[in-house]
C-alpha cells in the first residue's frame, strides 16, 4: 500500500509529471529571458515576478482558444499525434535519474540508453505525422524537413552517446551517471562538444531550426494547429529541450551527483541536477542566438559530411584514450 502511494507520488507529482510540467515552463522562461538579455531587450517581465508566469500564461491562453481541425486533414492522426509525442517524451524522461533515482522507481535496466534514444526517434516521428496529417503544403514541407533532419542526426547522436557509455562500461544511464568520479566532459571533451552540436540539430534550434523557419514555411508542421493541440506541440518541443539537456547532464556532467553538504542526499542531488541542466540550457540558447539558420542542403551536408565522420572519430578517440587514461583516473 505504502509502496503504491510512493510510486504514484513519484510518477505523478515529484519528480514526475507535475514537476516536469512546471519545470519545463521554468526552463522555457530561462531560455526566453537569456535570449532577450543577449539581444539587449527585456523578455517576459510583467506576468508574475520577473515574468516567470509567462510560459504558463501562454499555455492557458492556447487552451482557451478554439480548436479547429481542417476539413482535409486525416482527423484521427491530427488529433492524437501531438498527444502521443508528448507522452512518449515524458515517458523517456522518466528513466533519467533526477534525484538519485529514476522517476519510475527501479525502472532502469541494462541498455536503457539505447531504449531512450529509440523513444526520442519515435516521438519525433509522431511530430512528423502530425505535420503530414495536416492538409497544407507548408506543413508538408515542414514535416518532411523534420523527418530528414532528425533521422539524419540520430545516427551521430547515438554514436556520440556511446562514448560516455564506453567510459562507464555500461549502457544503463543510471550507471553512467553514477560512475563519473570525474565528469566525462573532462575525460572526453570532444564528445561533449560534438554532442551539443548534434543536440542543437536534434532539438531543431538555430542554426538547425528549418522545420520551424517562419520566413519560408510559415509555421512548418505547426501551421494548421491551434488551441489545445498547439499547446501540446509547444510543450513537446520545450520538453524535448529539457530532455536533451537532461541527457547531456547525465552523460557528461555527472548526472545528479555532486557534493552533499547536510541533510537529505536526495535534495542535494536534485539541486545539482537542476543547476547543471540550467547551465546546459543557457549554453544551447547562446548557440541559438549566435548563428543564422542553415539551408536544408547545408544541414544535410553538415550531417553526412561533417558530423558523422567526426562522431565516428570521436568514438575511436575515446576508446584509444580510455585504454590509456582510464587506469590512471579510475
Amino acid at each position, binding site marked *: 500500500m505504502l509502496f503504491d502511494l510512493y510510486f504514484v507520488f513519484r510518477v505523478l507529482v515529484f519528480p514526475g509529471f507535475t514537476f516536469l510540467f512546471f519545470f519545463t515552463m521554468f526552463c522555457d522562461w530561462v531560455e526566453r529571458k*537569456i535570449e*532577450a*538579455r*543577449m*539581444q*539587449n*531587450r*527585456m523578455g517576459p*517581465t510583467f506576468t508574475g515576478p520577473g515574468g516567470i508566469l509567462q510560459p504558463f500564461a501562454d499555455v492557458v491562453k492556447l487552451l482557451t482558444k478554439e480548436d479547429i481541425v481542417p476539413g482535409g486533414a486525416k482527423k484521427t492522426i491530427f488529433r492524437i499525434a501531438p498527444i502521443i509525442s508528448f507522452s512518449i517524451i515524458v515517458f523517456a524522461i522518466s528513466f533519467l535519474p533526477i534525484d538519485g533515482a529514476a522517476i519510475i522507481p527501479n525502472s532502469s535496466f541494462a541498455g536503457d540508453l539505447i531504449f531512450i534514444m529509440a523513444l526520442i526517434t519515435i516521438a519525433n516521428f509522431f511530430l512528423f505525422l502530425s505535420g503530414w496529417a495536416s492538409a497544407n503544403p507548408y506543413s508538408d514541407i515542414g514535416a518532411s524537413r523534420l523527418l530528414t533532419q532528425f533521422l539524419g542526426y540520430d545516427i551521430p547522436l547515438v554514436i556520440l552517446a556511446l562514448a560516455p557509455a564506453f567510459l562507464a562500461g555500461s549502457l544503463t544511464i543510471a550507471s553512467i551517471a553514477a560512475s563519473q568520479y570525474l565528469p566525462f566532459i573532462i575525460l572526453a571533451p570532444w564528445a561533449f562538444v560534438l554532442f551539443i552540436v548534434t543536440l542543437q540539430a536534434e532539438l531543431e534550434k538555430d542554426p538547425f531550426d528549418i522545420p520551424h523557419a517562419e520566413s519560408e514555411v510559415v509555421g512548418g508542421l505547426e501551421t494548421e494547429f491551434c488551441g489545445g493541440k498547439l499547446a501540446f506541440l509547444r510543450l513537446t518541443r520545450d520538453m524535448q529541450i529539457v530532455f536533451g539537456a537532461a541527457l547531456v547532464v547525465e552523460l557528461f556532467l555527472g548526472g545528479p551527483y555532486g557534493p552533499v553538504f547536510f541533510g537529505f542526499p536526495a535534495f542535494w542531488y536534485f539541486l545539482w541536477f537542476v543547476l547543471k541542466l540550467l547551465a546546459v540550457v543557457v549554453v544551447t540558447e*547562446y548557440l541559438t*542566438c*549566435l548563428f543564422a539558420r542553415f539551408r536544408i542542403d547545408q544541414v544535410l551536408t553538415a550531417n553526412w559530411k561533417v558530423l558523422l565522420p567526426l562522431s565516428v572519430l570521436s568514438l575511436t578517440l575515446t576508446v584509444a584514450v580510455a585504454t590509456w587514461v582510464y587506469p590512471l583516473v579510475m
Partner: protein
Amino acid sequence: MGKKKKSSISPMVKALLSNLFKKPATCQYPFVKAEVPEGFRGKQVYDINLCISCGLCSRDCPASAIEMVEINGKRRPLFHLDQCIFCYQCAESCPRNAIQSTKIFELATTDKSSLVIKPEEKAQKENGEQQ
C-alpha cells in the same frame, strides 16, 4: 599570422555575452513616460479668439478633417482627429496662428466622440470666465 586568425572570429560571440550583463535597451513605456521634443506634432489646440473664420484651414487640409460649423453666427473649424494626419498644414495656412501643437500623443480611445476638438467648448469657457 596568429593575429589575423584571431580577428576572424565573429564579434557576435563576445557581444552576446557582454549584453547579458548590460541594461536592456527597452524603454519601459507606459511605466516610464517617453520624452517628446519641442515642436512635436501632437494634438492641436485651437484659440477661438484669434480665429477670423477665413476657412483656409479647412480648405487646405489634405485629409478633409476640418469641417466649418456655425457657432454663434460665425464659421468655426471643427477638428476630426480620427481623420487628421497631424501634418499641421492648417496651422501653417492660418493667417492668425490660431492653431498650435501640443505634446499630447496618447490619443487612443474607444470612444470616437472624444476624437473631436469642438470650438464651442472654448467659446463657452471664455464666456464663463468673463462672467
